[in-house]
C-alpha cells in the first residue's frame, strides 16, 4: 500500500552517521599525537567510556536502575586477569573469556532485576555486587584480596604487538575494542530491538499490551550490558596488568552513574563524553584535596539532577534547537 503523502526519510535515515560523529572518532587518533606522554590516562578514559557505555545500554535505553553494575566490570577484570596470571596471556582470548563469564552471570542475575519495584531492583543489584565483593575479598588465594591480583603477563596482541611500557599498544587496543563495541551498540539501539527498549523505558505498562515480551527483552539487554562491562574490566586488567579489589566496589557503581548522568544518558555518546570530561577533570584537579573534589562532585551531581538532568548531550541538543537547527534529536 503506497503512502505517497508521507515522507518517511526521517525514520529511514535515523541511523545515518552524522558528520559530528566522524569528527568525534578522530579525537582518539588526535589525542595520540597531542598527548603522547599521557597514553596511560587516555587508555583509562577509553576503558571508562566503554564501561559507561554498558550502563547507558541498560539504564539510558532500557531504564534499569542498577547500583551494582561494577559487579560485571569486576568479573571481567578477574576473569581476564586470572586467565593471564595462569599462563593464557593472549589478550583476545582474555576478552572472549571475560565476555562469556560476564554474559553468564549477567543472564542468571537478569531474572532478579525483573521482579519488584525500583527499590527492590536497586537493592538486589547492589546486594549481588556486594556479595561478589565479599567473595573476592575472602578468596585471597585466588584474587589476591585487598592486595590485588598480580602476576598478569600479556602475550603480544595478534602475536605481533607487544604491550610496551609507553602504553602504545594498550591504547590502540583499547580504542579499537571501544570502537567495535560502540559500533555494535549503535546498530543495536537503532534496530527494532532498540526501539522496543525505549518503549519499555518510556511506558513499561503499555508494552505487553502491544505484544512485547518485556522480560525477555530486559534480560537480553541486561546480559549485553554485562558483556560490555565485563570486556571493559578485562581491558583494565590487561592494560594495567593488575586487578584491585575496588573494581567490584559500590563506589565504582556510584561513580559510573555520575559519569553517565554528566554526559547525558540515552544517547551512547553521552557515556563517552561523560567519561572524557570526568576523567580529564579528575586528572587536572588531582592535586586538590580529595575532600574538596568529593564535595564539589556531590554538589555537581545535585545541580545536574535539579537543573541539567539530561547532561552535556541534553544541553547540546537544546542549544542546537535554540540555534534553529530544528529536529527533535
Amino acid at each position, binding site marked *: *500500500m503506497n*503512502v505517497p*503523502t*508521507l515522507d*518517511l526519510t*526521517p*525514520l*529511514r*535515515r*535515523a*541511523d545515518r552517521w552524522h558528520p559530528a560523529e566522524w569528527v568525534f572518532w578522530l579525537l582518539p587518533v588526535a589525542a595520540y599525537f597531542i598527548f603522547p606522554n599521557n597514553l596511560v590516562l587516555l587508555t583509562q578514559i577509553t576503558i571508562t567510556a566503554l564501561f559507561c557505555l554498558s550502563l547507558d545500554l541498560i539504564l539510558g535505553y532500557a531504564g534499569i536502575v542498577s547500583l551494582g553494575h561494577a559487579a560485571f566490570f569486576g568479573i571481567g577484570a578477574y576473569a581476564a586477569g586470572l586467565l593471564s596470571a595462569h599462563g593464557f596471556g593472549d589478550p583476545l582470548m582474555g576478552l572472549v573469556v571475560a565476555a562469556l563469564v560476564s554474559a553468564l552471570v549477567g543472564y542468571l542475575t537478569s531474572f532478579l532485576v525483573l521482579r519488584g519495584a525500583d527499590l527492590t531492583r536497586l537493592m538486589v543489584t547492589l546486594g549481588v555486587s556486594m556479595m561478589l565483593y565479599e567473595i573476592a575479598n575472602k578468596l585471597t588465594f585466588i584474587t589476591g584480596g585487598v592486595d590485588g591480583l598480580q602476576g598478569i603477563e600479556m602475550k603480544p596482541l595478534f602475536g605481533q604487538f607487544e604491550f610496551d611500557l609507553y602504553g602504545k599498544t594498550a591504547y590502540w587496543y583499547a580504542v579499537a575494542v571501544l570502537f567495535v563495541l560502540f559500533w555494535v551498540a549503535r*546498530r*543495536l539501539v*537503532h*534496530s*527494532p*530491538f*532498540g*526501539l*522496543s527498549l*525505549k*518503549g519499555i523505558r*518510556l*511506558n513499561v*505498562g*503499555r*508494552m*505487553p*499490551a*502491544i*505484544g*512485547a*515480551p*518485556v522480560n*525477555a*527483552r530486559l534480560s*537480553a539487554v541486561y546480559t549485553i550490558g554485562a558483556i560490555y562491562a565485563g570486556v571493559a574490566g578485562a581491558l583494565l586488567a590487561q592494560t594495567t596488568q593488575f586487578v584491585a579489589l575496588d573494581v567490584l566496589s559500590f563506589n565504582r557503581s556510584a561513580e559510573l552513574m555520575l559519569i553517565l548522568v554528566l554526559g547525558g544518558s540515552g544517547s551512547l555518546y553521552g557515556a563517552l563524553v561523560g567519561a572524557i570530561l570526568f576523567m580529564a577533570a579528575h586528572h587536572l584537579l588531582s592535586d586538590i584535596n580529595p575532600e574538596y573534589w568529593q564535595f564539589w562532585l556531590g554538589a555537581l551531581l545535585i545541580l545536574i539532577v535539579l537543573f541539567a538532568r539530561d547532561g552535556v548531550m541534553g544541553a547540546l541538543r537544546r542549544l542546537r534547537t535554540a540555534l534553529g537547527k530544528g529536529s*527533535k534529536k
Partner: protein
Amino acid sequence: MTYALQTRNLVKKFGGFIATNDVSLDIEAGARHALIGPNGAGKTTLINLLTGFLEPTSGQVILKGEDVTRLAQHQRVRRGLARTFQINRLFADLTVLESVTMAVNERLGIGARFWKPVGAHTAAVDEAAALLATLRLLDVAHENTRNLAYGKQRLIEIALALAMKPQVLLLDEPAAGVPTTESRELFESIAALPRDVTILLIEHDMDLVFRFADKISVLVNGGLLTHGTPEQIANDPKVKEVYLGEAVYD
C-alpha cells in the same frame, strides 16, 4: 453462533473487596458490544482481567474458544486480543510513526531484530504509515507524542491497538477526555472498522453507546445486572434505577 470472547464465572477480589462478582459474559464474533455501568462498577477491572493485566481470583477467560486464563498479556495479544486504555499510555518521547511502527514490529514478530535499523524494515514502516493514514494522523507522524493535542493522542492510543490487527478489540472509554468536537472523528474511525473485528466498548456517553452498539451489558458493583439490545436496555426499569435512582450504587 461463534463467540469471540467469553468469561465463565469470573471473580476478582482485592482482599475483602469484590471487584468482579461472578461475571459470565458471551461476546459474539463481529459484535459491537458495549459495557456500561455507574462509576466504580468494575468495568476497567473487567477489561484488565480479560487482557491479562490482572489475574482472576477464580473463573476463566476464553478467547476464540481457547482458555487463555493462564496466559500473559503479550501472549493474548499474539492471539488477537488488543485493548486501549482509559487514560492514554503512550510513549512521550517517541514520534507517532515510531510508536506505531514499534507496535507493528511486535505483531510481525520482528521486535527482537537487532542488526538492521528500524527504517530498513520497510514492510513494517509502510504498514504503520498506512495505519496512520486511515486514522488521519499523517500530518503529525514525525511529531513527538508529548507535543500533541489530547484528541490526537487518543487516536494514537487506538492506533497502537489497531496495529495488532486484532480480532477482538477492547476499548476503554475511548472518548474520555476528548472534546466533543474531536470525539466524532474518533468514533467515525471506530465505526469504520471492518465487521470481522469484534469490539467491546466501555463508554459513559449514552448517545455514542446507543448509536454504536448492537448489544449492551450493564455492570453494577462488579456483577452483571442485565444484557440486551439498546432498545431493551433503554426501557429496562432496573437500569433506569441504577442510573437515575437512589444513590445506593454511587
